[in-house]
């Protein structure tokens, strides 16, 4: 670019175009995040009141109370299981969509987008119709005369994982698909010509070249899973709370805003660290490519 010959007006133009977006996000995201951090040092008086302060009481409570550590561990564990299962389910499906010569491939793509249009809360509660006491599985088993009393399958950790996989699958499949679709088919042909078996050419050529897409899907799914709080509320039992549920309770039920701010900061920092590590090795731009489909 010949930057030197641009006039001052032309140099200002992109910033002019960007200003509404930057003001919006600055006001609604950047400043609130800064205030959130500041608020974590406020003092909680009790009864929903707090006063400006600079003390480490909230942080001390967070670091000393095992309840919070358990919630973090539980959130991380369940999110990791969800993400891994999601990746295992998505890869073959994405591979099929990318490689198929099926004439109605557009239909498969369309069906991947359709879940995004269906209300998240409807999709989540529909699992109760599958797993619940009056759900499809129990109703079928009872009709077959195999059981008398329904098997409890809903309102536990497994149901939460299923619900989250259901919600995250399209994200994962799309991300893997984008990178599989971008692979030059000649490379696989070349590997085959040179004597690779089908499996070898997959392992040596296709799989490594699709890793960026897989990585992007994994990061996105983990972050979305770890930040969730509605799915555990609908599909989980009383013990199946995520870190997000603690934040909601601290603020909306206990009205302990400083503690809520502290816990929010913790979640932001932990997930931010993961994103930074990922960005260092893979680059975040990958994720955005998968999302713009």
């Amino acid at each position, binding site marked *: 670019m010949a930057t030197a010959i641009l006039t001052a007006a032309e140099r200002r133009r992109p910033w002019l175009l960007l200003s509404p*977006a930057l003001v919006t996000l600055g006001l609604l995201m950047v400043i609130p995040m800064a205030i959130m951090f500041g608020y974590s040092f406020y003092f909680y008086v009790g009864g929903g009141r707090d006063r400006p302060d600079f003390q480490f009481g909230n942080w001390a409570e967070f670091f000393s109370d095992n309840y919070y550590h358990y919630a973090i561990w539980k959130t991380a564990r369940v999110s990791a299981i969800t993400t891994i299962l999601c990746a295992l389910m998505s890869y073959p499906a994405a591979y*099929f969509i990318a490689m198929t010569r099926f004439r109605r491939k557009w239909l498969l793509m369309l069906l991947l987008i359709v879940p995004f249009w269906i209300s998240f809360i409807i999709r989540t509660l529909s699992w109760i*119709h599958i797993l619940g006491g009056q759900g499809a599985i129990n109703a079928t088993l009872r009709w077959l005369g195999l059981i008398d009393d329904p098997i409890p399958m809903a309102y536990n950790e497994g149901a939460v994982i299923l619900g989250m996989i259901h919600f995250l699958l399209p994200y994962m499949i799309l991300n893997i698909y984008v990178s599989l679709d971008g692979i030059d088919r000649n490379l696989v042909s070349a590997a085959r010509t040179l004597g690779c078996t089908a499996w070898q050419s997959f392992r040596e050529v296709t799989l490594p070249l699709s890793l960026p897409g897989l990585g992007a899907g994994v990061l996105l799914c983990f972050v979305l899973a770890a930040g969730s709080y509605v799915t555990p509320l609908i599909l989980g039992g009383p013990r199946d709370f995520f870190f997000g549920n603690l934040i909601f309770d601290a603020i909306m039920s206990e009205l302990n805003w400083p503690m809520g701010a502290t816990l929010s900061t913790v979640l932001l920092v932990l997930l931010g660290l993961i994103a930074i590590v990922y960005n260092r090795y893979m680059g975040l731009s990958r994720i955005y490519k998968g999302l713009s489909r």
Partner: protein
Amino acid sequence: MSDVGGWGWQAIKAFTVAVYIFMFAPILVTLTLSFNASQFGGFPMTGFSLHWFGVLADNDNILRAFRMSVMVGTLTAVICTVVGVLAAIALVRYDFRGKELINTLLVAPVLIPEVVLAIGLLLFLRWLQQPRTFLLLLLGHVMLSLPYVVLVVQARLIGIKRVYEEAALSLGANRLQTFREITMPLLMPAVFAGILLAFTISFDNVTATMFWRPPGVETMPTQIFSMLHTSISPEINALGTLMILITVGLPLIGGGLARYLARGQR
């Protein structure tokens, strides 16, 4: 993994079908149950009935929540599209310092948990000592939808060749004319996609909305959530079916119509 046609390929194909069934079976079950005559929301089916759709039409809370959702969604879509298109043009058509950083900032809301975004905005409001209002809900939804609109418009804009704009400029059109006559018409599909996407995200949002809604205000998803507390009533199933028909039907009809019209032009 295997050549197209081999047994390995057949296994992948069967697995893919299973994944699609997994994705759609629960939704189909909900659709089916909404036509159940039974008093209860679950199985068994006792007969076909449209009774529960009639019950919905008499429920004032649901109608109010629906109107609220449509209003927030529409305003969110309009604001996001204007702001998002401008930002996308700047990011695709211009080179400037700090572009990477701006890009990351614009899509950051995707990677920050909604709970955290929601709390941040609420704390800001509390710090300013302002009450929760409709404006908060609207601006919040704008923040959540904006990244997706920017991404979609950006992807489309990259595909529009610069030469068209340069040709118009060299033929004497000024920048505004070029934008109006060349860029905008070419960008229209992306603008529509952006509007639809922003509306859907807003219409669907429950996590952040639970924090942001002003006292006494319900949107469609929060209304369903509050109805869930006891058990799944047949009313919820009917509501779900209605929402699916709207949010899936509209884009499909819109997309089909656009394709049909485009074919007619040729």
